[in-house]
């Protein structure tokens, strides 16, 4: 019975670090997690990414594994606006929460997503240091897409199908990564054009 309303949560934001029980009439102790505005923001972004993941699962695919990866648009925007740490939170939360929703938590599909997400984030950690004058979200997206497919193929080869035959599929996956990476990058760049600049943080690469 932790009836914590949004008012409570906002209070919790202000009184950070202070544990408040939810009511004097309850003898049992209730555990409250103090959340910050940043946590709420990350959760909102992850929810958007999650929505895109679910939307995407409705799109039929000719080959398992060839997916547009629409949720990465959110990761790209978050990376450009709020930095790598926030992007990592959003991306990994999306993977874990998505697997809970689809019911494949700790199943092979989950580890495929996870390895892809982790390697993309590593690629983005390097790619974000490219000079923003010359390189935009399109480059970030393409590098992340290639890293994503690399991570997935590693898991497939080292764990699921340890057979050299999957090498025949790599060019197909790489082509898909290039195409969808470019498209996602363009969509992310377009979104960052339209949305107004948030007042708390300056936009890092004005296009």
């Amino acid at each position, binding site marked *: 019975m932790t009836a914590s309303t949004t008012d409570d949560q906002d209070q919790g934001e202000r009184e950070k670090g202070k544990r408040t029980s939810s009511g004097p009439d309850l003898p049992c102790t209730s555990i409250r997690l103090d959340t910050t505005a940043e946590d709420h923001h990350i959760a909102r972004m992850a929810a958007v990414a999650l929505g895109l993941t679910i939307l995407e699962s409705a799109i039929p695919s000719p080959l398992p594994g060839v997916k547009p990866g629409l949720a990465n648009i959110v990761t790209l925007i978050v990376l450009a606006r709020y930095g790598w740490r926030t992007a990592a939170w959003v991306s990994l939360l999306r993977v874990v929460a998505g697997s809970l929703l689809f019911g494949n938590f700790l199943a092979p599909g989950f580890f495929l997503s996870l390895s892809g997400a982790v390697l993309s984030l590593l690629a983005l950690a390097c790619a974000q240091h490219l000079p923003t*004058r*010359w390189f935009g979200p399109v480059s970030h997206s*393409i590098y992340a897409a290639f890293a994503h497919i690399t991570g997935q193929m590693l898991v497939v080869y080292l764990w699921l199908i340890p057979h050299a035959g999957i090498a025949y599929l790599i*060019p197909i996956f*790489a082509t898909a990564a290039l195409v969808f990476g470019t498209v996602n990058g*363009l969509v992310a760049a377009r979104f960052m054009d339209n949305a107004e600049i948030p007042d708390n943080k300056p936009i890092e690469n004005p296009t």
Partner: protein
Amino acid sequence: MLASAIQHIKPGDWLTLLLGSLFVAMLASSLWSGDLADKAIIRSGGKIFREAPLSRDQQIDVPGRLGISVVSIKQHKARIASDPSPRQYCVRQGWLQQAGEIALCLPNQVSIELVGSRKKYDSLNY
């Protein structure tokens, strides 16, 4: 819409696109290039019956456990033309052209394996 999309691509992005395309092309050419075979190794009962070059068209009768399998070589390709095995898997496999391809007639214990100038692996176990 295309024009507005292109203006979002910065010079470095074009470079990334170019590198990515080259990378994909390189992957495809290296992973999808089957070496053309130039020799067929015909085995019967586990022993090498004959090694036939693919450059010369010929028909070879190979005695096996059940009877005679006919291997035919034509235009740098090889196949098992007929075989006494009941399910005819090796015959239905059709023409073999690339190095590493194998047709096995298990009941008759006859097989053909195509090899190129360099062998990709030493042996295969099933």
